[in-house]
């Protein structure tokens, strides 16, 4: 078991009183799984991912990553994190951006160059090393940010709606590439999204969440094979899982309507 959360609670103190972002969250993630977190905004999916990353401190319960606390795991550089926007530094080239974590972690110059070349090839960006971020399309920038997260070869990849700002055609393409990459690297991936097809297409495990308080309402283990061409989305199994996800989301919403 690589990530385990027990009775996790997190309450933010805001000017309008406390906000219960996570309540009694229990989840276990095995090595090599692709886990999606899906739910409406405010359901705590991003907050949970940030808890795993040690970017938020839970106010109750336990969480462990690789058998350590998230903070220890962060300092041990146990995971790569991909944000909603690419967030590349505009003053560095694409290659320079991917090199950034390697410089911070003290890799040798030769190793830096070798790793940058390798991950750039992995995300299909070879030849763009000398370009600056603003010279690339949004999809290419996001691919570069994935390469940046892969560069130091952590076992875990945490992705917070990485394709949310991209159009659907680019998104499909990147989803396909991400699956291929996952198959090749055998990483454990935590993936936040608000798109049902995306969650179903990518995941081995889908975690459905709902807001006020943020909690898990359903965990679905996908029966789809690991090998997934794009047209698997028209298959009966795919549609059935999508239905179940939608039902879960609707159940979480009952109080609101």
């Amino acid at each position, binding site marked *: 078991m690589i990530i385990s959360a027990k009775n996790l609670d997190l309450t933010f103190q805001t000017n309008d009183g406390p906000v219960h972002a996570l309540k009694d969250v229990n989840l276990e993630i095995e090595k090599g799984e692709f886990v999606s977190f899906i739910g409406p905004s405010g359901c705590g999916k991003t907050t949970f991912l940030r808890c795993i*990353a040690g970017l938020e401190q839970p106010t109750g319960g336990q969480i462990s990553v690789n058998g350590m606390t998230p903070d220890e795991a*962060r*300092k041990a550089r146990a995971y790569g994190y991909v944000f*909603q926007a690419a*967030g590349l530094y505009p003053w560095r080239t694409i290659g320079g951006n991917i090199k950034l974590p390697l410089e911070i972690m003290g890799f040798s110059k030769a190793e830096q160059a070798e790793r940058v070349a390798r991950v750039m090839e992995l995300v299909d960006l070879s030849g763009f090393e000398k370009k600056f971020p603003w010279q690339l399309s949004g999809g290419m920038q996001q691919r570069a940010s994935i390469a940046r997260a892969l560069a130091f070869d952590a076992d875990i990849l945490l992705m917070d709606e990485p394709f949310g700002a991209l159009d659907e055609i680019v998104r499909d393409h990147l989803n396909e590439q991400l699956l291929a990459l996952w198959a090749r690297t055998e990483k454990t991936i935590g993936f936040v999204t608000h798109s049902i097809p995306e969650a179903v297409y990518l995941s081995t495990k889908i975690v459905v969440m709902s807001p006020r308080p943020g909690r898990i309402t359903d965990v679905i283990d996908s029966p789809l094979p690991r090998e997934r061409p794009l047209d698997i989305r028209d298959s009966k199994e795919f549609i059935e899982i999508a239905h179940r996800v939608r039902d879960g989301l609707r159940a979480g919403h009952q109080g609101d309507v």
Partner: protein
Amino acid sequence: MIYIVGALILWAMGWGLNARLANGPHAKRRTVQIAVPVIFGVTILLIWELIVRGLSVPLVILPPPSMIAATFGQSLPILWADFVQTFVKGALSGFFIGGLAAFLLAIVVDRYDFLRRGLLPVGNFMAALPIVGTAPILVMWFGFDWQSKAAVVVVMVFFPILVNTVAGLRDTSDMQRDLMRTYGASYGQTLFKLRLPAAMPFIFNGLKIATTLALVGAIVAEFFGSPTLGMGFRISTSVGQLALDMVWAEIVVAALAGSFFYGAIALIEKGVTFWHPSQRT
């Protein structure tokens, strides 16, 4: 009278030419964009010349440009010595000392939240004050020579650069800072790899404001006492002797020095912050 008529005709011609160029099909070309303001400037100079001659304006009120140019040409050694005294010794050294001090303090201030919250309002307040007023005090402390001028410049450029640098060091998004946290980056790594590069546009903004202030400080400080050279000294004594052609020649020097100083900083900025949207056109 003929001069005045000539001036009016010249104005009409210059403006007409500019109107045609500005509204013509090539208005977007670089040559036209440079030519139009140059034509405007030259027209103004010629009209100035014609009107001063036509109305026989006394030299103690307004000398014609031709005379200013002649004085400029004849007094090059004096103007150069004044330039070195005021700009190189006074303004430049003060600019570097003040800029460096402000930059280092900004990094310290940024590190400690309490300091930032205390010093930033004070610094913002100081940046709006008429700091040239400290000139008589500093002249008293540091003597008549360039050291006191540099001291005035230090005080003048300090606060704009401090305030801008502190603002710049904070101009990183949550996401950029979180990214550094996911790498477990140290304070120094975050400073050098993220916050200083991100702060550069702000720092250069402060530096550009400071270029003008540096010259103003160095010149005005000489009004409170100086050795017998320097741009401010020359201006105030020549005004006293009603030698306005010399005053204008010094003003030309001041204008050139100011523009080139600003231009040089802007050029360095272009090299350093090439990535910033404002530089990417």
